[in-house]
């Protein structure tokens, strides 16, 4: 039998981990762009906001932040709905997991993107402005593609850290890969076997991310010359 009959359970857990990681990555990516925009903005208020966000999040362990946000989000939302006179909205553990991971890793993406935006040559932006590009076109056709070139190594690193951080969501009650393999271990009495299995699956995911980043790097560095080093 497939994994002593625990195959479907482990697969469902893997799907949960992947879904969570993918949504949280998209959220963190967008938050990172906004955060980098704040940190590089001319407004002092926005800069302070961005600096506060990245400093607070990165000086506290992600697990502490996760538990803090997970348990507090619902209380804050209840206060908000009470104040507005709405019915109570319940946050399910999945949304809470996605939101907390996105908020935490958004701070890391902010730092990655801030450095990468700053590395885009000023002349490129001036040239685009001289061509009369509106801001959105400038961002989409000049700033973003060149920024990505500098940001990709950092993005790859963040993805690696993030996929590993999803292992922690089982602690806030999600039926992810870890929970599934631990349950399978409990049920079959083969803790060792199923723990190793979850480790191997994570290792495979890390390898896939490595390859994906390599491919993306090739795509985004089109038109640049490689160092002969």
């Amino acid at each position, binding site marked *: 039998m497939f994994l002593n009959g625990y195959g479907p359970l482990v697969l469902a857990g893997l799907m949960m981990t992947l879904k969570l990681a993918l949504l949280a990555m998209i959220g963190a990516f967008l938050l990172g762009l906004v955060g980098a925009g704040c940190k590089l903005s001319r407004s002092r208020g926005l800069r302070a906001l961005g600096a506060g966000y990245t400093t607070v999040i990165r000086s506290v362990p*992600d697990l502490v932040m996760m538990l803090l946000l997970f348990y*507090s989000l619902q209380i804050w939302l209840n206060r908000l709905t009470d104040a507005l006179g709405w019915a109570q909205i319940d946050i399910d553990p999945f949304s809470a997991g996605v939101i907390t991971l996105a908020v935490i890793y958004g701070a890391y993406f902010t730092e990655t993107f801030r450095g990468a935006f700053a590395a885009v040559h000023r002349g490129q932006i001036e040239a685009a402005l001289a061509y009369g590009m509106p801001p959105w076109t400038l961002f989409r056709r000049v700033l973003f593609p060149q920024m990505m070139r500098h940001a990709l190594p950092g993005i790859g690193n963040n993805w690696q850290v993030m996929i590993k951080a999803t292992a922690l969501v089982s602690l806030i009650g999600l039926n992810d890969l870890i929970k599934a393999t631990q349950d399978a271990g409990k049920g079959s009495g083969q803790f*060792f076997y199923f*723990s*190793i299995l979850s480790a191997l699956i994570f290792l495979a995911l890390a*390898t896939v991310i490595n390859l994906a980043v390599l491919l993306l790097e090739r795509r985004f560095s089109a038109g640049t010359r490689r160092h002969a080093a």
Partner: protein
Amino acid sequence: MIEILQEYGKAYLWTDGYKITGVAMTLWLLIASLALGFVLAVPLSVARASANPWLRLPVWLFTYVFRGTPLYVQLLILYSGVYSLSFVQSQPLLNGFFREGINCAILAFGICSCAYTTEIFAGAIRAVPPGEVEAARVFGMTSLGVYRRIVLPSALRRALPAYGNEVILVLHATSIAFTATVPDILKIARDVNSATYAPFSAFGIAAVLYAAIAFTLVWLFRRIEARLLAFQRPQSTGRAA
């Protein structure tokens, strides 16, 4: 908030009256894991930076596996996985070791930190200017002598900024020790949360404590770097230029 601090402040910092808890336990986890990781990482990084593939590739595999899997999974393997094996339970020594959550936590953190530290040190060893090694060879130093007196002192100094980051990451990583029933800062925060239903205060205090330790460590490393990496700063010769 005030009541929580009055009632649980001591547990957050050093003891709940019976055993070491909170900040004291987190610092012990941090120091023990870092020491274990450092001692193992020095020889492994030499092997990792070696030209001999029989030395280099096994160490690469070790760091790839331990850096590619979540630390939480590694802790689970040691704490619930290894302990469930019958040959471990039948041996009194192994049984005694793996039964204690704190032993498993320190072992897991130490090995994982060792994998990252090995890569940091190996990078620094590769970056040692070849001229320094050649000069030492010319002076007739043995391979061991070159490593002990030239390569390692220089590489470990240059690795300090990256190692400082690693120390902060290990500090953050220790927060999963509560899953192995170790009474660190986060374990106290969870107990306080279930006793008071005030998650923001309970975890907020923990967050502030972790941040305070992190900032102290950053400050400490800055001081050490200023001292040990003084040679990298531009120097005035004492004479008018």
